[in-house]
């Protein structure tokens, strides 16, 4: 079913969800294809509500959710193509790691649940702990066990809600590596987080939710480029920085220039125009350019800007 589908894996059409007078998400519309997509937003932005709507755990008050072109509501067979890692510690503490993953293989109706569970545990690097009880595991180990349970049937769509919460840096690095491996195999991965650094390393695309509304979507560099009303910082190291500064100030797109030794920190409304004009200016004055870099391309900057703008 899912492998033959060539349209968007996930599609939300004007999805809203409200609880009484409280609007959790409003008029969300987006489509996801392959690769890793990060769902970003501050606490209370509506990330979990959105993921619950996508995974059919709640019905939108308005709009529709399509997975592989089919509405998720009332179609439990769609879950054969989906793996879900909910937020929080949703585990049976007394089960062993293997029996937990095996139970999920059985719930998916796999004909050989034992080997399927062992394969999933190997994929997440948990085979050495397969006979340990879940309650004795570290946070990272429990998260990896949850992922094993979610991929035991080898889904085409993997949805993870705040999967890295509580992990130490080492566990996060390994977890990101694991998710990349899964995505590289053609699985569509949607991962929510408010830990921007990890999402930046993990996701090729982002969706930013603020106050229950979609604030931005797409490649985060592309989003940053679209924010032309927000000046961006460019650091230039040159042979004679002080001589170069007046020319940079004269550029119509330049907002501010600060000189510190051989470094110039310029704020510009157009990195492209700045990058075109700078070499010309340097050549005309006979100044050697040693380094040019933008310092606020990070997802954190994009996110702060979008959240602050609402």
């Amino acid at each position, binding site marked *: 079913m*899912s*492998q033959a589908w060539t349209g968007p894996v996930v599609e939300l059409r004007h999805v809203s969800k409200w609880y009484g007078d409280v609007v959790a998400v409003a008029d969300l519309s987006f489509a996801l294809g392959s690769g890793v997509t990060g769902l970003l937003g501050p606490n209370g932005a509506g990330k979990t509500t959105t993921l*619950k709507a996508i*995974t*059919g*755990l709640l019905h939108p008050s308005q709009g529709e959710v399509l997975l592989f072109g089919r509405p998720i509501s009332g179609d*439990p*067979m769609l*879950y*054969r193509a*989906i793996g*879900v890692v*909910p937020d*929080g*510690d*949703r*585990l*049976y*503490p*007394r089960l062993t790691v293997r*029996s937990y993953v095996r*139970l*999920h293989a*059985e*719930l*998916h*109706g*796999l*004909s*050989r649940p034992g080997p*399927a569970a062992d*394969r999933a545990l*190997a*994929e*997440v*690097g948990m085979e*050495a*702990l397969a006979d340990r009880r879940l309650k004795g595991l570290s946070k990272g180990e429990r998260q990896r066990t949850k992922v094993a*349970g979610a*991929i035991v*049937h*080898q889904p*085409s769509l993997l949805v993870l809600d705040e999967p890295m919460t509580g992990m130490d840096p*080492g*566990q996060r690095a*390994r977890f990101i*590596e*694991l998710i990349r*491996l*899964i995505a*590289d*195999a*053609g*699985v569509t991965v949607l991962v929510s987080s408010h830990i921007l650094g990890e999402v930046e390393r993990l996701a090729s695309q982002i969706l930013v939710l603020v106050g229950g509304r979609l604030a931005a979507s797409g490649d985060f560099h592309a989003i940053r480029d679209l924010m032309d009303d927000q000046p961006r910082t460019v650091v230039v190291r040159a042979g004679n920085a002080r001589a170069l500064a007046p020319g940079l100030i004269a550029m119509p797109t330049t907002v501010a220039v600060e000189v510190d030794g051989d470094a110039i920190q310029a704020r510009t409304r157009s990195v492209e125009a700045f990058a075109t004009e700078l070499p010309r200016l340097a050549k005309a004055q006979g100044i050697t350019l040693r380094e040019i870099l933008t310092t606020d391309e990070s997802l954190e900057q994009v996110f702060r800007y979008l959240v602050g703008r609402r």
Partner: protein
Amino acid sequence: MTEMRVGAIYDRGYRHYDGPREGRSRRMRAIVTAGVRRCLGLKRNWKTKVVPFALLVGAFGPVFAFIGIRLLVGESVGQFLGYGRYLGIVALVLLLFAATAGPELLCPDRRQHVLALVFTRPVTRADYLAAKLAALLLVIGLVALVPLLVLFVGNTLTAPRAATYLREHGGDLGRILFAGGVLTVFYSAVSLAVASLTERRSLATAGLLGTFLASTVVANIIFFTATSFSGRRWLTFLALQGLPGRFVEWVFGTAAPPGSMAAEAGFTGPAYLAALAVLTTLSLALLAWRISRLQP
């Protein structure tokens, strides 16, 4: 182990599963099996086995003791442990078993927040409810039905002539299946319905025991003190722990003890069967409503 903690994830070739998948029955069987194991404490530590196995000993003990005495003493021991009498003896065991097994099946799923994991698999709420009910029917049937069948087989095998016993007591087998089956369904439905009201096992267990025992005590007190109350005979249906007993007496043709509330109320067996059916139906309706409203 140490290597594990240092950590590395190896690409074992993640690929899409295109192997065979079994149907709904396989998925439900997984929930049923997990449920039965959970109720009986199987594949778990010894502490979780204490209560269910103590109750199983309480249920099977009288049967094996009787069969053993019949083997030693022979037919002269008589029928002091009749089928109806046995159900009367284990009535409290049955109630305790229902009051612990039902909550064990339902409450932890909510308490440990695992419903989101269950309902994001190809499992509908109806599948979930049916599987949980099936698991509890199997477990309660282990106490309400199986010991009676063992007793029947024991009586047959220890009789001077097994064929004669079967010919003369063949009707008992039908009565055992009928009475045991009704009690199994009744206790399973009521137990799960009460368990669906809370996510705390202890609260559900106490609630079920308290309701059954307190209603019986209160109904008896009112019945024997308010003798001028014209509708007092109907109080017999409020004595919840007494209902199964009255039904069993009717099935096996025994009479309620003289002077008891049931004897004085004067209702016949079908009235008690109808009361059990009404309570079972109400319990299943409550259970279905609660499951449909579960928030994963």
